[in-house]
């Protein structure tokens, strides 16, 4: 078992929190990285070091600290650009999180200040998402539809938890302005094949956005190879800090889009009655940005790169293979999502007959120190589609082990005993 040369015990030592005990002497079993990941010492150190020795405001302070801070902040942008294969560093916009990145793009549509035909939206036009989206890739598009009179449509999900593209030709048409779907589902673990959707959208000049919050932390990505238009993800799910996210977009599109938030450093010149704006990416970074968080994200990317994204992907595949095998010995356990490991990440959501997920999660935590997520995981429509109010979700990352999956299975047997 295990990706070749992958030393998970050594990796675990890089994450101080994984060695802590919970009250009552319970060792921590952290299976909630799809929610938010833990941080390695190098990320903690990089942020601390920046605050201790280099901190100043970026872009506007001319003194030595301002220069050092600006170099570190812009250096993080370079790292992000290289990590996702962005053709240009100026296409990398720092946001607060992935939600803000998606809202930023949605705001650009149907905006009176935008002349570009591709961003004009009104009654008769359509926005296409999918039933497996996180609320952050649903609600901004609902708001856009309400604001402009456009129609929101969506891909259904198959019983196996795959994107149902059988109605693609009917769904993506000359009325479609943008298609925005998850690269990888936060509940099902499904990794979506973007190519057919993209090809169809291109036929009609519709733009394509990927919510990559769950893919960037877990597999190598290359936005140029994916050939999409927009790409959003967040720092805290990829061993970086919370408070920083990324929007990548094609430069010519970002240029055509209106500013999202107005404020300091996003301008070129300001008069009392009007302003002109800075070139991208700064046009979209109003106010003092998350400087220390950007430094932390840069350190996270260095760390992930040093481990190797292919290795991380292979390790997670081993874990999910092991977990899907283990669930067979557990009658009444229903996996919501693919039961095979093809085009699938390390997220396993499930229900257990007759036991509510909140009770499952509570006992796993109280008795065994196992952290899973319970509820609808900000994907309520997906749960409605499967006719269930909630699921229990175990999500794996580079530091998880098969022993932790064994602990989860032991915990679930105990849950069954309490409620049996």
């Amino acid at each position, binding site marked *: 078992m295990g990706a070749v040369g992958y030393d998970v015990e050594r990796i675990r030592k890089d994450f101080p929190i994984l060695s802590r005990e919970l009250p009552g002497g319970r060792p921590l079993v952290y299976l909630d990285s799809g929610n938010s990941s833990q941080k390695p010492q190098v990320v903690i150190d990089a942020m601390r070091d920046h605050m201790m020795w280099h901190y100043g405001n970026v872009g506007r302070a001319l003194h030595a600290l301002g220069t050092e801070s600006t170099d570190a902040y812009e250096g993080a942008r370079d790292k992000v650009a290289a990590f996702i294969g962005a053709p240009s560093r100026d296409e990398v916009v720092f946001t607060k999180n992935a939600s803000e990145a998606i809202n930023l793009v949605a705001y650009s549509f149907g905006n009176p200040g935008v002349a570009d035909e591709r961003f004009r939206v009104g009654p008769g036009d359509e926005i296409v998402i999918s039933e497996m989206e996180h609320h952050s890739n649903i609600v901004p598009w609902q708001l856009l539809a309400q604001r402009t009179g456009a129609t929101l449509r969506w891909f259904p999900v198959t019983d196996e938890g795959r994107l149902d593209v059988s109605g693609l030709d009917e769904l993506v048409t000359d009325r479609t302005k943008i298609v925005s779907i998850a690269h990888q589902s936060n509940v099902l673990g499904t990794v979506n094949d973007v190519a057919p959707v993209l090809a169809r959208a291109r036929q009609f000049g519709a733009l394509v956005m990927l919510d990559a919050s769950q893919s960037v932390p877990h597999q190598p990505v290359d936005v140029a190879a994916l050939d999409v238009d927009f790409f959003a993800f967040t720092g805290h799910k990829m061993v970086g800090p919370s408070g920083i996210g990324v929007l990548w977009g094609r430069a010519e599109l970002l240029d055509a889009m209106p500013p999202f938030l107005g404020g300091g450093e996003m301008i070129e010149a300001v008069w009392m009655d009007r302003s002109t704006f800075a070139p991208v990416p700064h046009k979209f970074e109003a106010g003092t940005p998350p400087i220390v968080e950007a430094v932390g994200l840069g350190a996270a990317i260095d760390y992930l790169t040093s481990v190797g994204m292919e290795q991380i992907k292979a390790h997670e595949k081993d874990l999910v293979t092991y977990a899907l095998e283990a669930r067979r010995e557990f009658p009444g356990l229903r996996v919501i999502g693919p039961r095979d490991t093809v085009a699938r990440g390390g997220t396993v959501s499930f229900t257990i007959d007759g036991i509510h997920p909140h*009770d499952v999660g509570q006992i796993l935590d109280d008795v065994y120190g196992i952290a899973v997520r*319970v509820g609808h995981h900000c994907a309520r429509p997906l749960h409605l589609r499967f006719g269930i109010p909630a699921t229990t979700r175990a999500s794996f990352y580079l530091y998880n082990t098969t022993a932790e999956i064994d602990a989860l299975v032991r915990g679930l047997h105990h849950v069954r005993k309490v409620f049996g």
Partner: protein
Amino acid sequence: MYQELILEHYKHPQGRGLREPFDTEVHHVNPTCGDEVTMRVKVDGDQVLDVSYDGQGCSISQAAASVLHELTTGATVEKTLAVVDEFTRLMQGRGQVEANEDVLGDAVAFAGVAKFPARVKCALLAWMAYKDAVVRSQV
């Protein structure tokens, strides 16, 4: 948290199912976890004649509805509202509040839930629905 009494009520809920006649019916949900309860009350003067309910959710929310049925059916409105107040005080006490067992009866079994802020709303769901239904029946 999972007292025997709670598990017992969860596995064998008392008075479950919506019944006629009733004065008011309310539907309450817990938006963070999707737990829900539909509750009907039948009141005559100051007497609670029946409290019937249906719902779905975790053991805490469903057992709370069952215990509530037992404590309220056949009691006076005034007494049951005193239980609601004491139960609410206990649940919002972050585990620092001494439970008044004389008022609470079997509902004292939920005292441990108060130490888990994320679960307090589960325990309170049925009780808030009951209070809502009774108040509406009085107007």
